[in-house]
């Protein structure tokens, strides 16, 4: 089966829960286990939260959630046109956060990496960030 949806939403924190539910609803056509659904909801929550608090730094902007299904594999992209990441390698290290004052734990990328099968981050300073994650539903 192949399928695709694209959702653009405003970068406000109310939409974190919305994005999780949208992802769960889209993926449910593959009959995932509850654990697989939890993994995907958590990873999407991390990427969308990052776009809102780091990408747009709580200012208005558009976050794009692009989800595709190819056979038994789900591919999810979270895209922002915010400030971008200067040093992706450093940003992806466990426990690294640029906002310790906000009680961030620096675990978002590590969570995405371990709850999904693959994670790719591309970014350009001043232009924005794209997070691409895939997971095979067994």
């Amino acid at each position: 089966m192949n399928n695709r949806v694209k959702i653009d939403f405003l970068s406000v924190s109310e939409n974190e829960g919305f994005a999780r539910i949208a992802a769960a609803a889209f993926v449910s056509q593959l009959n995932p286990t509850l654990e697989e659904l939890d993994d995907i909801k958590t990873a999407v929550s991390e990427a969308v939260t990052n776009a809102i608090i780091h990408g747009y730094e709580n200012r208005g902007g558009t976050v794009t959630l692009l989800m595709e299904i190819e056979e038994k594999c789900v591919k999810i992209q979270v895209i922002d046109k915010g400030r971008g990441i200067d040093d992706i390698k450093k940003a992806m290290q466990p426990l690294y956060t640029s906002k310790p004052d906000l009680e961030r734990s620096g675990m978002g990328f590590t969570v995405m990496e371990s709850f999904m099968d693959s994670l790719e981050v591309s970014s350009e300073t001043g232009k924005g960030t794209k997070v691409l994650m895939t997971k095979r539903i067994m």
Partner: protein
Amino acid sequence: MHLTFKKTGQTLVVSMAGELDHHNAVNVREEIDRRFSTSNAKNLVFNLQKLAFMDSSGLGILIGRYKTVSAMGGKTAIAAPSLLTRRLIELAGVHRIIPIYETAQEAVGGVA
């Protein structure tokens, strides 16, 4: 997100119900901090039995409270996390600073 508080001896138990994400984090943090300081409790237990979802924003809340409580000589503990929440906590190594118990009652006993 819904919080309920109960004091047992020197320990305040906060029971969380709902979804703990960045959207809810500020209110949760402020309410726990306010209730903890007015309760005169020494220790803090997070009862996660009814928590349906948590992401790294929740980890930030747990670690932040651990820091303030332990700075004042108290102890913190986590009770009854779901499978998902437990995986998250263990991935971040948070269980090494905030011990996990199966029930709120055991957690209260553990910090006493």
